[in-house]
């Protein structure tokens, strides 16, 4: 471990970290926005569910590097374009969250939905004020898995030349310099822990009823 490499390269490390955060978290947000309506459809419609859920499982089996590489051919982007990584990770996030959302919505007690309807909620309003909030705990659990795995996966982008902390791995490997790799690993794990912790806190904050329940 060459400790003094770190202060000498703070700019490089800081820059890589910023890129990493952006590349990892945009897909989480985009994935959530897409997954909620899709998951709602799947929870409503058995046929949709029968297509989405297996499709999502198949998506998992495709290696991320393969997706990073094949996407440019489909999107018409440059192979080095970070957009490839963002789109690929968004696809993974949607695949993971659709199932969470569908399961969470299906688990909302029918009585609660019936009561809301009886009180005069229209379906759209009822979804936003009743069903979605009750699905939040499961949604948060899905988001945590998606965020942590995205943070780890972004580093693979380095193999196709996309920035982020993964660059510390390819560079460190080519220069036979373990320190750089260790710094990358530590930062990625720390970043994952911080984001995970923030999601837990956010979940507690927006579901106060879960805290009071015995």
């Amino acid at each position, binding site marked *: 471990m060459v400790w003094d490499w770190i202060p000498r390269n703070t700019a490089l490390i800081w820059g890589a970290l910023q890129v990493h955060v952006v590349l990892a978290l945009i897909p989480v947000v985009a994935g959530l926005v897409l997954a909620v309506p899709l998951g709602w459809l799947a929870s409503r419609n058995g046929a949709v569910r029968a297509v989405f859920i297996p499709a999502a499982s*198949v*998506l*998992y*089996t*495709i*290696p*991320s*590097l*393969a*997706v990073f*590489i*094949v996407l440019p*051919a489909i999107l018409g982007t440059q*192979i080095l374009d970070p957009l490839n990584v963002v789109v690929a990770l968004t696809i*993974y996030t949607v*695949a*993971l969250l659709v*199932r*969470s959302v569908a399961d969470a919505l299906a688990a909302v007690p029918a009585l609660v939905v019936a009561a809301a309807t009886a009180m005069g909620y229209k379906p759209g309003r009822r979804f936003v004020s009743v069903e979605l909030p009750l699905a939040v*705990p499961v949604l*948060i*659990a*899905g988001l*945590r*898995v*998606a965020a*942590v*795995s995205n*943070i*780890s*996966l972004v*580093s*693979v982008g*380095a*193999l*196709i030349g996309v920035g982020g902390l*993964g660059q*510390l*791995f*390819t560079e*460190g*490997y080519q220069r*036979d310099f*373990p320190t750089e*790799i*260790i710094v*990358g*690993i530590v930062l*990625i*794990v720390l970043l*994952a*822990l911080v984001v*995970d912790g923030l999601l*837990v806190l956010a*979940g*507690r904050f927006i579901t106060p009823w*879960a*805290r009071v*329940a*015995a």
Partner: protein
Amino acid sequence: MSLLFSYLFDAAHWSGPTGIPARIGEHLFYSVLALALGAVVAVPLGALIGHTRRGGFLVVGIANGMRALPELGLLTLLVLLMGIDLLPVTIALAVLAVPPLLAGTYSGVRNVDQGAVDAARGMGMREWQILFKVEIPNALPLILGGLRASALQVIATAAVAAYVSFGGLGRFLIDGLKSLDYSQMAAGAILVALLALAVEGLLALVQRAVVSPGLRGGGRRSPTAEITTPDSSPDSTDTTTATPEPAGATP
């Protein structure tokens, strides 16, 4: 579309030491080694923690922590430290196999009907008999669910070995990338996905064969079930999930 399949359907790529069958063989070899190592660590640990019902926080911590480890960083680091050898590759991949197996085994053993365990103890089974005759057979659906998730993850990720000069289907991805040969890369991607699906299907059949018919259907928790922490406090967000993350956790 022809670009996607031209490499794959070229007969010349189906023979020899760098042919597709040989690469599939290598890929499976790395994957099986890693799964075996992962299972040797994760299953006894998960079973022990589940049986004693102590240290559930360890499972959550280990599983979450290991999930956050970047595979590419781990692999390059281990190879730099240990040399280009099968062992660092196996260890790096085994790290992926541990979280689902650990979580599946732990929650499987932990969620066995406590009445059955109490009855087993009360009838005079010793602790190891309770574990092997009651808890593990009942936990089998979740343990095998964990194994399937692990296998998916490891097979999809074993392609990373090619980056540090090993064989396997990752070769097509890395070599194709170097020469910008899309067809070759596509072949690699398709083959990895097909291999993962084939192994998944095979394991599903194994599961059908070895799990007692008494455990099928009705109220069994799925392999993606949440692990409840010992006190099952209301903040169920403090639990880890055995949900497989995108298996392509690296090349």
